[in-house]
């Protein structure tokens, strides 16, 4: 009896203590008291006392070196620990960041950035224009063998330097980037490129700290070695497990940054990410994708958020195999894109009506309003067109890579094409094999193949130049001189309105009334994500899949 009553007393004391601890934590907003977190009303709560979140990253960044990184996870971490020259706003227009202003010369082939004078590296050194000269040349150097060196090919002399095999120092000096003085960076381009300033928001254009890179070589990105210049610092990086960022109090605009700490857990599996979110272990995902099987359930949650994402999901034709343009048009007409989106992809994607996605500037002018891509398909017209085809190819091989989601779409399309008398065999392949198969030129067996294109920067040329005759990304055997001519001319046209007209003509050649239909665009991507209501208002993923943590503020209680 005594033992029991002692136990009860201890239990009661503990309970009281526990209540006390809970009561003292966090910032209570508006007397919600014991009720769960805010129900997603737009007014948001007050900024919480503790500005710390845990988020899930969908992959281990293969590299945090701006010269070597190619994937979006690396890019998102890098863009938060470094200071880009410009950033893109919600309309994807470049805004001053480390560069406080920029000027173009008359024809737009020389761009001069004026840097702010208060940029600093974490070791105290100032950020100067020389840092950018060093970094861009380093990325272009053949020794580094940077995968994304081609992002900088718009700079004069860049391609030549990158292609060099020996004695390359002279070519390095000829690359068109120089520091006029410590805070003025002059970039000479191969031709006027109106999108260049916007493109320089890409992580490949970031500066790295020369002394650190030279001292530590490939290990310079480890947390104990790395020197950065951005709003957050890399505090810890347990490979394949976690990445922790902390606010750098000496960043030039540190008082505008609310978040003190971002703990990142690397969770590779989509289902596990969702489970971690629902167990309240993480407050946000990074936009890496939600498992298709769960989409219908997740869409109903308050924590669900949908972002625009500049990219096009398409089926390409091998026009050497499917030679009759009417057959290609018929196959495109037969596809009911809206049904695929509603029932299979399930993330409110936009049915594609051309190559250039909605959200690119000038979309309304560029979009060809193709008669061959009605959102819900037009089977009747498709069948009529198919009847006009002299020697239709009725046995089709449809190839796709074996990632989740593609097979289901292929099966739906196979069914839709069977209405045209086409017998489709679906072939799934492992990724690296698949790419070998596609060439270019594609293997003979390929009749139709599936791919997607995610835009690097927000100008239509990034997607349209894929379809030129020489493009390494053109697996269709489509080669149209007029099209190539339009693209070349567009590259030299700084005026937006004029350039959009050229893009429109190019799209017309592909998808217009007399369009050749080398590809069958299916949908424009979207980015679904899950975010706790305590940060949902300020957590934003831009249309180029960019996450700016300086905007995020924790409001109210996180779950």
């Amino acid at each position, binding site marked *: 009896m005594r033992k029991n009553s002692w136990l009860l007393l201890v239990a009661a004391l503990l309970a009281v203590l526990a209540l006390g601890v809970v009561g003292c934590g966090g910032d209570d907003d508006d007397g919600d008291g014991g009720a769960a977190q805010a129900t997603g009303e737009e007014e948001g709560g007050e900024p919480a006392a503790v500005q710390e979140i845990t988020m899930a990253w969908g992959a*281990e960044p*293969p*590299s*945090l*070196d701006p010269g*070597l990184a*190619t*994937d979006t996870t690396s890019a998102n971490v890098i863009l938060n620990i470094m200071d880009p020259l410009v950033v893109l706003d919600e309309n994807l227009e470049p805004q001053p960041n480390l560069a406080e202003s920029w000027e173009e010369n008359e024809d737009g082939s020389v761009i001069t950035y004026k840097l702010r004078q208060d940029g600093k590296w974490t070791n105290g050194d100032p950020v100067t224009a020389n840092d950018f000269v060093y970094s861009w040349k380093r990325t272009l150097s*053949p*020794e*580094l*063998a*940077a*995968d994304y*060196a*081609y992002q900088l*090919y718009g700079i004069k002399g860049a*391609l030549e330097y*990158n*292609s060099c*095999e020996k004695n390359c120092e002279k070519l390095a000096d000829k690359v068109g980037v120089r520091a006029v003085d410590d805070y003025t960076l002059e970039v000479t381009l191969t031709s006027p490129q109106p999108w260049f300033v916007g493109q320089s928001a890409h992580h490949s254009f970031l500066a790295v700290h020369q002394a650190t890179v030279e001292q530590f070589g*490939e*290990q*310079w*990105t*480890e947390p104990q070695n790395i020197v950065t210049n951005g709003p957050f610092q890399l505090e810890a990086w*347990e*490979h*394949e*497990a976690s990445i922790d960022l902390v606010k750098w109090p000496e960043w030039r605009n540190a008082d505008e940054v609310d978040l003190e700490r971002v703990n990142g*857990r*690397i*969770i*590779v*599996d989509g*289902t*596990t990410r969702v*489970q*971690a979110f*629902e*167990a309240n*272990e993480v407050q946000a995902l990074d936009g890496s994708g939600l498992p298709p099987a769960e989409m219908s359930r997740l869409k109903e949650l308050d924590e669900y958020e949908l972002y625009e994402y500049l990219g096009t999901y398409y089926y390409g034709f091998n026009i050497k195999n499917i030679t009759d343009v009417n057959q290609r048009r018929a196959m495109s007409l037969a596809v009911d894109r809206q049904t695929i989106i509603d029932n299979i992809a399930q993330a409110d994607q936009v049915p594609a009506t051309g190559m250039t996605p909605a959200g690119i500037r000038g979309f309304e002018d560029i979009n060809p309003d193709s008669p061959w891509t009605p959102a819900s398909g037009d089977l009747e017209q498709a069948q009529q067109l198919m009847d006009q085809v002299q020697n239709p190819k009725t046995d089709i091989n449809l190839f796709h890579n074996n990632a989740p989601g593609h097979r289901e779409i292929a099966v739906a399309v196979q069914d839709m094409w069977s209405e045209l008398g086409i017998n489709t065999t679906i072939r799934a392949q*492992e*990724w*690296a*094999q698949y*790419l*070998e198969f596609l060439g*270019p030129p594609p293997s003979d067996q390929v009749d139709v193949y599936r*791919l*997607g*294109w995610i835009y690097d920067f927000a100008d239509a040329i990034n997607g349209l130049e894929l379809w030129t005759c020489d*493009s*390494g*990304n053109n697996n269709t055997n489509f080669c149209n001189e007029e099209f190539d001519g339009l693209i070349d001319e567009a590259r030299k046209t700084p005026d937006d309105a004029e350039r959009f007209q050229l893009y429109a003509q190019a799209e017309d050649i592909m998808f217009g009334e007399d369009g050749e239909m080398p590809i069958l665009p299916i949908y424009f991507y979207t980015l679904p994500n899950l975010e706790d209501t305590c940060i949902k208002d300020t957590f934003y993923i831009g249309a180029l899949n960019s996450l700016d943590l300086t905007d995020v503020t924790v409001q109210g209680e996180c779950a």
Partner: protein
Amino acid sequence: MATYIIRRVIWTIPVILLVILLIFSLMKQIGGNPFRQTERAVPAQIQANLERKYNLNKPWYAQYGYYVKDVFTYDLGPSMRLRNRTVNQIVQEHFPVSLKLAILAVAWGLLIGLPAGILSALKPNTLFDYGGQLFSNIGFALPNFFVATLLIYYLAVRNDFFPTNGWPTDFWDFNDKRIILPSFALGLFFMAYIARLVRGTMLETMQQDYVRTAKAKGLRWRRVVMRHVLRNSLIPVVTAVGPLIGLVITGTFVIEIIFSIPGIGRYFVTAVGARDFSVVMGITVLAALVVILANLVVDILYGFLDPRTREARS
């Protein structure tokens, strides 16, 4: 005994050379571009730069020579996909994780499988035995990723008993709750396997003449079991456990993905898909070494446990 061990160790060298040759030719056969991870084509100049950097532009025998040298000097080269990491670093940081996971899984197997098997054998054809066999069949039949997802859902999401994913960074940390669900899910197969194995060997041993003699002599059944039956039945278990630990490298892949465990299994399978030659080579050689070592240890132990083997060897 010493000569036996030395002979085995020396035999390891040709085995490793054969493994390297096999992996090298297999990787060359499957083709694929290690530098093209996304749909974006790699411009010709960049492809050339990369091939030069990683010696892929050299003839095949030169490349093979580099690999052999790398393995024997324990400088396994840089990863082609993870540009800031070397294979040595990857192996040093992540192999212990998978090793720990596999050891824990085998521990679960022994912890649950051994008693289950023993009790099944001692009470054959009773309800307990049938129950044990049913459990064993389920352990074989259910894929571990299925069980893993269920465990996470019921024990981590619906109820907060365990974290959903992750793994402690410190190898010697055995208090962290995160080690329990993954090792249990992985250990399911071992539990089933060991239970069945032990049941079988014990039943067989109990038929032996010396057991009948012991019972006839009047020894208590318990003493018979503990002293005679158990020891002799467990020898095959020892033999089995050795190579089971050898499965550590690739067997853990799925569990590592689901539970976000930074182990070597994940690296290996990802590296094959990405055509990261140096990582594939390095990890395969490591796997071969682990299997060889595990088998060697088991054989030595076997010698100690079973005097008949010792005599046959000398």
